[in-house]
């Protein structure tokens, strides 16, 4: 993982969130307040702008800047949650222009830890965590199985992470929300896919796409 790949990932995530804004907003209308798509699009658009005007020395600096920008621009719960996750990822990465796949995996887990610490959600609460946690587990498992040598290792691990995130996202449909605004609906939140888990899948899919090219 180098600066170019870090930038390519965030760029791909911004594209995906822009293309799916309507869809995320519709999911949020069902069990929340109809703003998730717009907020994520605004936030990752701002990340793109911030990165265009910066020359970060390593991938860690790219993610720290992305996280800080998300906290400053998004608002709601998703701003602090995604912002803290990206900041923790950035700060967990060793200095240098390039980090290996294992260090990047440890950074992804640091991001998950930061998000859980801030939001207090556990797996099964119908949140971002339901896509993020299995993605990090799958990433680690893929590295253990196939090794992390070169970009090929990272690409395979990212592909596994995106697949697990998708599965986790789909598994939120039958869950009853216990955190966030959807929790106010009680049993009425059952039967809807969680918008936060959906945006998390989009971000991991963007990582897989960026790492594959």
């Amino acid at each position: 993982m180098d600066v170019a790949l870090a930038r390519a990932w965030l760029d791909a995530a911004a594209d995906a969130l822009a293309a799916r804004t309507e869809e995320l907003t519709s999911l949020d209308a069902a069990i929340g307040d109809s703003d998730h798509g717009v907020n994520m699009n605004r936030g990752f658009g701002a990340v793109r702008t911030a990165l265009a005007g910066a020359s970060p020395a390593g991938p860690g600096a790219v993610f720290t800047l992305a996280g800080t920008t998300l906290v400053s621009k998004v608002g709601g719960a998703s701003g602090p949650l995604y912002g803290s996750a990206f900041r923790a990822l950035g700060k967990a990465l060793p200095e240098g222009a390039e980090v290996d796949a294992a260090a990047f995996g440890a950074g992804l887990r640091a991001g998950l830890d930061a998000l859980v610490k801030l939001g207090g959600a556990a797996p099964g609460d119908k949140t971002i965590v339901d896509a993020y946690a299995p993605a990090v587990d799958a990433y680690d498992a893929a590295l253990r199985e196939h090794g992390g040598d070169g970009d090929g290792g990272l690409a395979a691990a990212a592909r596994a992470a995106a697949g697990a995130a998708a599965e986790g996202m789909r598994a939120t449909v039958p869950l009853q929300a216990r955190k966030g605004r959807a929790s106010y609906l009680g049993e009425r939140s059952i039967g809807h896919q969680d918008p936060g888990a959906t945006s998390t899948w989009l971000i991991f899919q963007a990582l897989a796409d960026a790492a594959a090219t």
Partner: protein
Amino acid sequence: MDLRREPVRAGVTSPTPGREPAVKKFINHPDAVVREALVGLAAAHPDLRVDLEQQIVVRAEAPRAGKVGLISGGGSGHEPMHAGFVGLGMLDAACPGEVFTSPVPDQIVAAAKAVDGGAGVVHIVKNYTGDVMNFQMAAELSGDEGIEVHSVLVDDDVAVEDSTWTAGRRGTGATMLVEKIAGALAEEGADAAAVAALGTRVNEASASFAIALTACTTPAAGRPGFELPEDEMEVGVGIHGEPGRRREQLRPAREIATMTLEAILAAKPVAAGEDAIVVVNGLGATPLIELYLLYGEVAGLLESAGVRIARNLVGNYVTSLDMAGMSLTVCRADPELLRLWDAPVRTPALRWGV
């Protein structure tokens, strides 16, 4: 000039930027609604300082040396809350976020810097996941800048069970009571801890419950958040257009008043002989004639229970864009709360005694 004349520039087919007729609202572009409304607020109320860069609304004379600064904020779409409550005897600053989206920490820190007169600030935060997180991050950042920060968490909505199965009760109608009463104490020169403690006491004495007859439409989504059949109502809604706890057949106003009041008094009892402040609040698209009708029902029920309505408000104070609906808030009052409620206030939305 004949305004009815057909445009001369026939054949121009590309849409004018910002002209998107899909959303039937008085707006120019969904992305510009909050900012352009603040421009209008500034024009209408020159006694407020509206900082469009930081997206905050500040009392003109802030900071005042030695006075605690009261700061609130939240998603836009609840007007007049919060910017309409900035002024003498109430808030020192408001931080409006995007529609139904909490403000970001930068806004809240900018507000703290603008109003801190050396006595610290008090955050008044509605209990929503995003609001709590952003105000918490801002409190840490303001603390790093040497500003003492206290917080009041408002969670008065008794439609939500307060349990480990939810994010906890929401902050709704009682927010205005907290801002008014704590604001009056701050105006008298009390310290930050005392102002925050009083705000918490008002919240604990208050309970709210809301019913919606229609969903609301955010400018960005452009269509109602949910579909509600003509003869049904959403019971226990919040103020962000989300559906309620359950859906029921529409009933006469008397039964709705009884149902909401019973839920409120079950959670926060007011005994016979005690005083209450009662607010019948419109959610945005309900006419005053219906709110007064409901107030009459509520007043009759409370009178039968022996509760004295010491003070009341009927109108649109904590809204949810164009949602048709109402919320009822009952605050069990004592002489201190009533004295501070009566204290002078001069804001765009509440003004008396000055």
